[in-house]
């Protein structure tokens, strides 16, 4: 069962994935259906991130081609 995290701005599902040769974490955006798989080294590197470094990912303009324009 995936773990669901929901607030007033977003809903995501999080679970581990074993389909590759090694374990990964899946993060699925419930609204767009899009998912990202992150390996342990990527996740370990994320612990050094500052929230302001994630700002570019939060810019809705960046998501246009993937979400808003999705047919």
């Amino acid at each position, binding site marked *: 069962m995936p773990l669901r995290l929901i607030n007033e*701005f977003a809903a995501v599902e999080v679970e581990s994935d074993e389909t590759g040769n090694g374990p990964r974490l899946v993060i699925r955006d419930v609204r767009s259906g899009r998912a990202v798989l992150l390996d342990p080294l990527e996740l370990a590197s994320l612990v050094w991130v500052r929230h302001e470094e994630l*700002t570019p990912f939060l810019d809705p303009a960046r998501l246009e081609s993937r979400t*808003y324009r999705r047919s």
Partner: protein
Amino acid sequence: MATMLDAHVNYGELILNDRISGRVYYDQQIFQEEIERIWHREWVYVAHESEVPEPGDYLTRPLGLQPVIVSRDEDRKIHLLLNRCMHRGNTVCQSDSGNSHAFRCAYHGWTYNNRGDLVGVPYASGYDTSFRKEDFALAKVPRVASYRGLIFASLSAVGPTLDEHLGEAKRLIDQFVNLSPDGELVLRSGVLKHSYKGNWKMALENSVDGYHPNILHHAAMVMMMKGKNDMEAVFGESSDAMARDLGHGVEQLDLNPIHTKHGGRVVPPGWSKEAFEQYHAAMVRGHGENAADKIIAEGPPHFCIFPNIIFILNQFRVIQPVSVNETVIHYYPTLLKGAPEEINQRRLSETYLIHGPAGRVAPDDFEAYERNQIGFQARVNEWLVLRRGLHRERRDNGSTAGHETDETTQRGIWRHYREVMTR
């Protein structure tokens, strides 16, 4: 031509030292002027820092009638932002509280970080090169300051500092907060919200009215005193307690003369001896023996700070005006950081037993406020009489003081109100 409202309200004629006109409770124009001159200009209590303990935590609150967001950024700094998208004016946050480092407006997707900076907008090619994100940050509340974890804000860029505004209240806030062995309050236990069909000022005045408890709350007093026959000694004519006007709208029912009668080591009612001993030891560690005994003996001070925060027993009461005849009161139980669990549980249960929807005290007050608002419709003689104890009022210890059942505190509120409204 139809009758028009007076262009000018003469507050000096409506508010005299020994009486006030009922018009101040129902007049729409006066309410609008209060919003401008008090709620959107003076220092107003907004929230407690412990309500946003983690980076990313946020609250939505009204400041007067304006919606604001209280957020804590990843560097732990607290921001007060107007909850109004810079695009079309929607509120960007809807929840009472949550955790997010960014806020996305649900209407057109404009997205802000929790410092209020505009991060981006959808379909950005629709804006030309003169569109600069930095011109569209969420508006900030002009002045924000804290004292002992209490966050106050002013929508005016100029005016007295929070320090000047609080004045003598700082000493009373210290007395309230120092009941925690660690010197910190924790407001993480939710809130009771009561709305009533009446004017906001009734709740403020009532909070420091020592004349009504034995009468309006008679049943509750009998129950709480458990037949010990000392009702008169606390809220009656033989009480040693005092009503004090400390200036600036800081009003106190000074119960110290009663509390300190029995010294600092008396187990408060309802506490187990073990819990009290643990608490006393923690207080001695936190404050030193002499200070700990004094703080415990005095107990929580009972006072209000104009216009919207009241300290009674274990809680903060926060007044929120909605309209001239509608108000919401928020009761926040406060926990004492470093105190034994049993004592904090006791503080919580006291809040809901006394001030819950079926509590022993609060429902009486709400009934009284609504009867007031109906009574104000009778306008042949509009005066309310506030002369009780005027003949025996005196200066004492830097305050104007009267007997606890005197209307010294109400007169203090109205003097301050008149000063603010005619400034």
